């Protein structure tokens, strides 16, 4: 790599990208109630405060229930779509896939209010269940994108060989295909978990009186005195996301290698 103006720009750009994430822990460990420089010294007090906030624990539990359910649901639905798209030809394939992928580009507010209006009209109260429905819709495109990667390099003859040797279709899928795409499935589960855990808009519109972590955070942003605690909570969330993301990426690459594809970086 040459030392060119372009490299310098790339460096500055990375700083721009990471600025919020670098500042976050600084304020979370800072012994001062005001979120501003100069820093005042090191404390773990804000993290300790997190431990004795019951409302927060409730929100965390809600978020975990939602994120786990969404990860499983979206990945299952994603499996169907990814296998159908890579294995079979059917009419309107592009259109159907495009429609399922639509939540990727649609403004979230539109998705959220249309879901809300329908649920209100049906008399279904906003709850954890409605958030799970909304998040699954949002995570499905990501699950499909990741799983498509694992299915794409799959050799059809492997499955055919299993069927020729006397396995049923379902048996062949379970014994031959599933083990090969397992890393992709794990990556998809983790990514859907992260998206659901961090998602705010749909949760905000559909949560009713069962807030998720981001909705709880949003409520706390109004109280200046609570901001250091918010920073501490944010630090935990961001660290969790990054750790899960790295694990997910390791699995995704392993999956690609299993089917003999080259590793091109990053999701999406």
């Amino acid at each position, binding site marked *: 790599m040459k030392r060119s103006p372009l490299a310098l*720009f790339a460096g500055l750009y990375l700083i721009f990208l990471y600025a*919020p994430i670098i500042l976050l822990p600084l304020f979370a460990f800072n012994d001062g109630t005001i979120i501003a420089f100069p820093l005042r010294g090191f404390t773990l007090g804000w993290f300790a405060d997190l431990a004795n906030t019951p409302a927060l624990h409730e929100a965390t539990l809600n978020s975990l229930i939602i994120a786990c359910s969404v990860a499983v649901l979206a990945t299952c639905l*994603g499996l169907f779509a990814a296998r159908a798209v890579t294995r079979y030809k059917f009419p309107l394939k592009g259109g159907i896939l495009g*429609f399922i992928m639509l939540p990727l580009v*649609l403004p979230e507010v539109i998705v959220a209010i249309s879901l809300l*209006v329908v649920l209100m009209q049906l008399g279904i109260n906003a709850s954890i269940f409605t958030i799970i429905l909304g998040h699954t819709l949002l995570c499905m495109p990501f699950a499909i994108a990741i799983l498509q990667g694992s299915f794409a390099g799959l050799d059809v003859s492997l499955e055919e060989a299993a069927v020729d040797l006397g396995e049923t279709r379902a048996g062949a899928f379970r014994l031959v295909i599933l083990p090969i795409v397992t890393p992709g499935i794990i990556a998809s589960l983790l990514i859907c978990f992260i998206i659901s855990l961090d998602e705010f808009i749909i949760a905000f519109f559909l949560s009713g009186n069962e807030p998720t972590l981001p909705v709880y*955070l949003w409520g706390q942003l109004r109280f200046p005195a609570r901001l250091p605690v918010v920073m501490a909570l944010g630090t935990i969330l*961001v660290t969790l996301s990054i750790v899960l993301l790295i694990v997910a990426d390791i699995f995704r690459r392993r999956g690609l290698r299993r089917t003999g594809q080259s590793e091109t970086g*990053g999701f999406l």
Partner: protein
Amino acid sequence: MISPPLIYALLLLAVPLLTIILFSFWTQNFLTIDRTFTVANYAEALTDPLYRELMLRSLRIAGLVTAATVILAFPIAYFISFHVKPEKKALWLFLITIPFWTSYLIRIFLWRVILAYDGPVNGTLLELGIIDEPLSWILYNANAVVITLAHAFAPFAILPIFVSLEKIDRSLLEAARDLGEATTMTFIRVTLPLAMPGVLAAVLIVFIPTVGDYVTPRLVGGSGGTMIANMIYVQIFDLSNRPMGATLAVLAMLTVTITLAWFILHIRFWVHLSDRVGGGMLGLVLAVVAAVIDIAIVRWVFLHGPDWFGPAGSLGVLAAIMGGGAVLIALFVPKGRWGI
């Protein structure tokens, strides 16, 4: 095999979208909803200066965000594709996507901290003696929204541009240079046109969601940075006027679709202009000038049209200009290189 996800998407996406379209033709009658079919909501949304201003501002902010994001993203994508060793590309892309996977809410909130009156940006600039007093134009207004969203959507712009740059056959660049083209001209006449599909994809992926962003205007926008999504929220939750909220949502989607269709058709025109003078620097300048004039005309009619032609009339004039232009371009300008 496709059916479970398709049924899911139909039930939770198509049905709700159709429902809000239906809702937009109803009206709120205090506590009940009047289900007589009417276009009153649309008439109000399209003529009330407040809604028009919010819609235009949302489009302007989204346009600025898109421009800023794509212009900043291009050199990065170019750097990764052309200057980073192949085995390190994956790492770079991973580094760029990591921030995207962390909590959106927290990232946006931290921009409020960064841009604050006593925040690190002002602190550093004061320290360095670049400014004498803290900048006040970087928080609680449209600028702050643009900066913050340009950060939030960075990976969405970098990845498609990177993909299209990776697809460029490197021997084409060598050929251009062997034939005596300078490095800059090679870039303008070979690399840039070949990377345009990626740039267009980036524009679409950034523009559509940013028009409807809710969190950023609320956290860093102040009163001058409020956008259409905030108004939709106010209508539905604070004013309990769900039909009006639905109408604004439908209009927002329509406006985005029309704007993008107009934009894509006009790109054909701008590229055609550029090609007519042989491309290169002159072509680039000409295309940009044409783009600025085109956008200025539409914006002027939208803003000042009501004074001249009345609220409804101005929409007619706008439709005539945009539709007429589109038809002319579709009929007389040949399809460009990128199939648009």
